[in-house]
């Protein structure tokens, strides 16, 4: 039997909009994954620390304040610095399409914008595991 996939859903930055993050966390749990949710207002450092401690396979970052260009890549960089870049990082939130190519380049492997069905996120996780 394959080991269960572990996913950390995290809210970097100062934004308190957690409806999407909590929905994704609960829906992924219902889909059979092991999900940990950080709560709001986490620093990239704290997220990376939790991810390593909890031995997760994926980190899903959610942000709606517009700070994604600064904070998402910071999480990826910190993972690299801790030799934990086997953890796959994806993101979601109010993120302009035009920012996505650059985020992909900086190691955020997938970005899900408003209206994405949960099955697309699950399909992504299954393809990337």
């Amino acid at each position: 039997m394959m080991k269960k996939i572990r996913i950390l859903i995290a809210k970097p930055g100062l934004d308190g909009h957690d409806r999407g993050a909590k929905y994704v966390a609960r829906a992924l749990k219902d889909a059979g994954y092991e999900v940990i949710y950080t709560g709001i207002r986490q620093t990239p450092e704290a997220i990376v620390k939790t991810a390593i401690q909890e031995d997760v396979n994926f980190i899903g970052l959610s942000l709606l304040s517009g700070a994604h260009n600064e904070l998402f890549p910071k999480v990826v960089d910190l993972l690299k610095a801790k030799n934990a870049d086997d953890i796959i990082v994806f993101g979601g939130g109010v993120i302009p399409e035009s920012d996505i190519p650059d985020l992909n380049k900086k190691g955020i492997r997938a970005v899900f914008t408003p209206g994405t069905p949960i099955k697309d996120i699950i399909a992504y996780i299954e393809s990337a595991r």
Partner: protein
Amino acid sequence: MSKDERFQKRRVDWENTIVKKTTDRFPERKTEFTTSSWIPADRIDIPESGDFDNYTEKLGLPGEYPYTRGVQPTMYRGRFWTMRQYAGFGTAEESNERYKFLLDQGQTGLSIAFDLPTQIGYDSDNIVAEGEVGKVGVAIDTMKDMEILFDGIPLDKVSTSMTINSPAAILLAMYVAVAEKQGVSRDKLTGTIQNDILKEYMARGTYIFPPKPSLRLITNIFEYCSAEVPKWNTISISGYHIREAGSTAVQEIAFTLADGIEYVKAALKVGLDIDSFAGRLSFFFNAHNDLLEEVAKFRAARRIWAKVMKEKFNAQKPTSMMLRFHTQTGGSTLTAQQSDNNIVRVAIQTLAAVLGGTQSLHTNSRDEALGLPTEDSVRIALRTQQIVAYESGVTNSIDPLAGSYTIEKLTDTIEEQVWQYLNKIDDMGGMVRAIENGYVQKEIQNAAYRYQQEVESAERIVVGVNKYTIKENPPSDVLKVDPKLRDLQIRKLVEVKRQRNQEIVNQQLNELRLTAKDRDKNLMPVIVAAVKEYATLGEICNILREEFGEYQESIVL
């Protein structure tokens, strides 16, 4: 059924007393109101027969208890709601320009959006502010930024709403100080601070301190304003964010009124007289797409609050029983897909708010699921309100949907379900307890989850998202905030610190600490004194963090 003369008599009494008193002072917009085909539109329509006592008890007339039909006797025949677009981004200079643009476009009040570091009490140079400075609102570090923000805007001529909660006392202090510099006395200032901490714990997230000291700050503001800034709305008790977090319409009203009850209890506990502050409480609700449910929701909210104030808290003044509210159209109903469709959603929501009797309204822009709205989008959003106001005719007669079987049944049902929540929360020991044990968050999340599952399964249709989808090119004109803005803001902060008298600032901050330690003292005067010496928002909040501690989120999933 034969006519019951009591109805007509009641209406004539109302016209001759409360209406006359109002129109003598504030004449209506026109001497005669008609439909577009010149059919006369009466100020109010009421039944001719039926259960008179039941009508009086449940609906009454506008401006009369229980205010189901509206808080003012002439409503929009007197004047339209305040059209107030929430705006602010980047630096104080940029936001000041946007405010002047909005005022030029016919907007009648300002609504200030602050960036997240400001809302959580951090200066722009704090490490946690990285990426957030100027993004969702304007960055304010010191009173200097506030002086720039309101440059050329006379504060005795505009009413200003500020979306600020944990550090509300500090931003209010800066506003009062800027007004003083403009030569405007405090008693002329009109506006609102959100100042509603409880919904931050359950839905919005910009809390700093734990509930107890937060409630002290709030009651300090009530007390200070009733003496010093009497026309200021000291709190905007908000259901907006609760709804955005995924609650139902019933939960929106229930949890907001439960918060209101908690604030009233806190103020009574420190010895304030109910009628000295209750009239300055205001509310803030959401308007979603289900038109009739939303209209019923607003009417039910007014009726319940009036009863709570009269029966539970024994308020005497009519203004203490009136639920006055601001509305914003529903951000979470906007779709990133086919975003022009959002104009239609916003128009329906505008109608809901107006038919529900709102006192002021913000209409969202079509592109807000994509990023900050462009100037074109903001203009369309404002025009939507103006079209409803001037062209739709729904403003001619007050509470025009009253008496509809569907509306009255929905109003009654919502009221009943709200009371069930209020009683349950009361049994738990009040709203602070209900939040601390995660009950409220869990209720909201369950509703949010159910909604989203229905969208996923297409049981609930969202046009353009799970039906009638098309292939689209990404939008090209999304407004961006300059990422270098933080450096600019930090340079301004350094310059202010260089120019101020550090010794006096230290003294003021020490005074603040001593005042914070003494629970019986009001913090407002020392905060006003500190901001005048250009103490920063972060410095003031840090002292309070040290004295009060910080709130830890109780994570419920």
